[in-house]
């Protein structure tokens, strides 16, 4: 994740913890989909979603039991959305949706904006 990904809908195998939120915002991602890492303590696994919302960046997470954490391709091909931020929800992203469909919705919304 670096500035080469600026504006991209970035689908990754990482958790969506607070440090990933910082990276997503700092690198200027267009949108992000990661792994919820089982949510975990203080919902730490999806902390980035709210942070991204504050910067108008759509973000969502797939359930840890649906995709292999650490593998971005698994997030994209196997992932089922378990959490989405408000910005993503407005684009039609919802829990239960496949990551592929969610990514398409994010891309369409960004292209239309």
């Amino acid at each position, binding site marked *: 994740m670096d500035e080469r990904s600026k504006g991209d809908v970035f689908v990754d*195998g990482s958790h969506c913890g*607070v440090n990933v939120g910082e990276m997503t915002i700092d690198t200027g991602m267009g949108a992000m989909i990661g*792994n919820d890492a089982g949510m975990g303590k*203080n919902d730490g696994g999806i902390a980035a979603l709210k942070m991204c919302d504050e910067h108008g960046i759509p973000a969502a997470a797939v359930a840890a039991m649906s995709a*292999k*954490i650490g593998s971005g391709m698994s997030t994209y091909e*196997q992932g089922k959305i378990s959490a989405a931020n408000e910005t993503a929800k407005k684009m039609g992203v919802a829990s239960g949706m496949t990551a592929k469909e969610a990514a398409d919705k994010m891309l369409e919304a960004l292209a239309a904006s």
Partner: protein
Amino acid sequence: MTHEVHKVVKETGGFRIVIANSATSATEENKNDIVIDGSHCGANIAPDYILPSGARGMIGNDAGIGLENAGIASLKTLGEHGIPAAAVAAMSAEIGIGQSTYDDGVISAVNEVAKEMGITAGMSAKEAADKMLAGVLKQRG
């Protein structure tokens, strides 16, 4: 990619226990370190970050274990390279925050090398880190 400054919490005989939020920030500067991080222990962590850095031990987050135990896949890989590794339960520590792994983490999974050093599930991450440090000192002889 990530250029975070690691916190050194212990130093003995040339080995250190260091805290990092992300395992992706491990570099050759961590050669001989026990790296305690806030990352998951997925398949990419060992070959892409921990092994190239030359770190001597690792404790990360189990990320809820997840599909096909992906959250702890690197433990076995590190064990195959003789490196002790363990994960803390996602419900015990906040993923993404290395200090939480160290301060709050409760071990949920260990590899064979860590097991031989006396590290077991249910142990605090701090105690496990101390055992790894003692273990690598002993390995050196």
